[in-house]
């Protein structure tokens, strides 16, 4: 039995389909990522799985409980960090956690100990009695992670845990999550629109676009699944006549383009092409000025499956940001 089993789950809002017949299974102990641009339906999907909104069709089980018919059992077994920061700013960190411990029915004897342990785990113990409003965004996220774990859930849902955080805070949230996951054998489902986050944190990734699941696999396999797994950027001195054609004939090369004196070689097998390229250059008696091999990113994967770049999508949805408009 998977920790989360989703079967053709669908959500419609007044005729608009936000989540469209999505199915997947998350195994126990797995970190599963939903990757998609703004409006893809990530939050809607997570809200259905956490019993916040009823699905229009299809069904799902979390920890073996049906999300509609056994909603209370589902709630007892999961921890949830909503997309918005929802801690009580006027209350202290400990108070916030205690109140949620009570809401989750954590027995009186264990409450104080759990609060202490969790605040230590997210490295906020020196802030225990300070009001939450003194915390930075990253610290607040870490507090909410602690809050979501107060009742020791088996399955943990996080909706965009690092959106809006600076790079340092993001890394610290990632580290926190990996540490907690290892210590507690959590099953984690998180949503994100950062490719690096999905790549670094997740065992498997589901790419969602316009409410549909378009691809699902481990980051490595996803990247391997698209043609042209590597890009070689290389420059030579001197460049003999017909060199472009020589490059094109190297093994596993899909395409070659030349910009000024730099060649971009798209290869289905980076290592093999690289070795052949170095040998060809030596044979022709020319030297390599520079060589870099880049692997495919999830952005390339996203582009392959949706025909669009994830970055563009994110910018499109930010057209109302004035600073973006001035640049035009």
């Amino acid at each position, binding site marked *: 039995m998977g920790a989360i089993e989703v079967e053709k789950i669908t959500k419609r809002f007044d005729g608009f389909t936000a989540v469209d017949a999505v199915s997947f299974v998350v195994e126990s102990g797995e970190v599963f990522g939903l990757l998609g641009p703004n409006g893809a339906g990530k939050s809607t999907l997570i809200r259905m799985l956490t019993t916040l909104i009823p699905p229009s069709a299809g069904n799902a089980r979390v920890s073996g409980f049906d999300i509609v018919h056994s909603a209370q059992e589902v709630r007892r077994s999961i921890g949830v960090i909503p*997309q918005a920061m929802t801690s*009580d700013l*006027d*209350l202290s960190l400990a108070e916030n956690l205690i109140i*949620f411990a009570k*809401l*989750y029915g954590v027995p009186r004897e264990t409450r104080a100990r759990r609060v202490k342990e969790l605040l230590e785990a997210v490295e906020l113990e020196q802030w225990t009695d300070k009001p939450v409003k003194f915390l930075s965004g990253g610290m607040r996220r870490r507090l909410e992670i602690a809050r979501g774990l107060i009742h020791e859930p088996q399955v943990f849902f996080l909706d965009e845990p690092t959106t809006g955080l600076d790079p340092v805070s993001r890394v610290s949230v990632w580290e926190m999550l990996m540490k907690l996951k290892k210590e507690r054998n959590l099953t984690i489902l998180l949503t994100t629109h950062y490719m690096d986050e999905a790549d670094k944190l997740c065992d498997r990734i589901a790419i969602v676009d316009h409410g549909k699941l378009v691809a699902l696999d481990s980051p490595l396999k996803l990247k391997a699944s698209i043609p042209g797994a590597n890009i070689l950027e290389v420059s030579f001195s001197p460049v003999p006549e017909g060199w472009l054609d020589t490059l094109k004939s190297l093994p596993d090369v899909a395409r070659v383009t030349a910009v000024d004196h730099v060649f971009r070689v798209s290869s289905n097998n980076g290592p093999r092409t690289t070795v052949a390229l170095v040998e060809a250059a030596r044979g022709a008696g020319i030297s390599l000025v520079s060589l870099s091999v880049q692997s495919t990113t999830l952005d390339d994967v996203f582009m392959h499956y949706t025909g669009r770049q994830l970055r563009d999508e994110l910018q499109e949805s930010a057209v109302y940001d004035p600073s973006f408009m001035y640049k035009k």
Partner: protein
Amino acid sequence: MDRMWALVERDLRRFRRSPTLIFVSMVFPLVQLLVLGYAFGGKLKDLKVGVVDQDRGVQAVKLREMFNAVHANARTFQTIDYHDERAAVDDLRNGRLDAVLDIPPNFSRDVLEKTAPRVALIEDNTDNFIEATLQGVFAPLLGAYNQPATTAARVPTAPTLAVVELYPYVPYIQYLLAGSTVLAIFVSAMIGGGIIYIDDKARGLHEGYLVTPITKFGLIFGFNLAGTIKAVIAGLVLAIFGSLIARIPDPFSPARLAKIALVDLATSLALISMMFLFMVRVNDPLVPRATFGVLNTLLFFPSGAVYPASAFPKWMRAISIADPFTYGVHAFKELMLKNTSLSAVAGDLTFLFLFAALMMAAATALFRRTL
């Protein structure tokens, strides 16, 4: 049970942390009590009445002596003598006088001959309050003047009205105190049950509660209980400070305080549950802010808090009958002004508790335990 109390605890802790909120919910009604209390219902003093004595007879002099006596004692008005009626009326028009009393040339003769002597009171009737006060002073004065010196000679068949005042004189600020107390409860309900409730919802705080295993009833009771506790505190504080400010006699007798606390509880429950029903399907933080003023006016003024409901037009009396304010105000008035027994306010309490039950039932039916 524990879960519901967690919501209450959170709310009360937050309430304690931000004293501004406590302040706002009490300062508004207190300021209103003070300003309205002294602005209205004070006794008018030193009104300027021009007296044109065209008679100059003995009877006219007697009359003017009576007026001077009023001036010396109650100081309701002071008299200024005029020789010319036109000059006096001109000054009245220009606002230098509040009224002109015209004693016609044949006043003394008419008195002696008993041929309906008349004195004319020329008033500035653009001000209802001054007009009513002056009529209220002069009518009995002239009545007293007409009375023969001994009461025994009164015609036995002419009925007279003997007024017996049951309670000590009630200054307007005391009359208003009941309304201000209910207002404090209302402001607390409006801020806690309206504005903050919807702000929390919009900020996603409720989303945080909805994913926990708290039941629908736990949520409803938690929100309402927390709101009621805050409203009861607001009402009690206002009743106590207001009683001191308005100089209610013997305000702290335990029996009276206990009865006031009960009415406070009933009124708070009624207003909080009403607010909860109004807000149960609202998501936009602007809504409670925009409705604050309208609701306040619609509930406060028709309740008889500032003016008796018997003076209202029909449509307003209809509001007043359905308005929980009316019953809270009535009950508080009974206890504050007359220190009556609980049975005098039993009707009010019944209405308030039934009203609260009805509102809660409707709100529960509409409440969704999802986003």
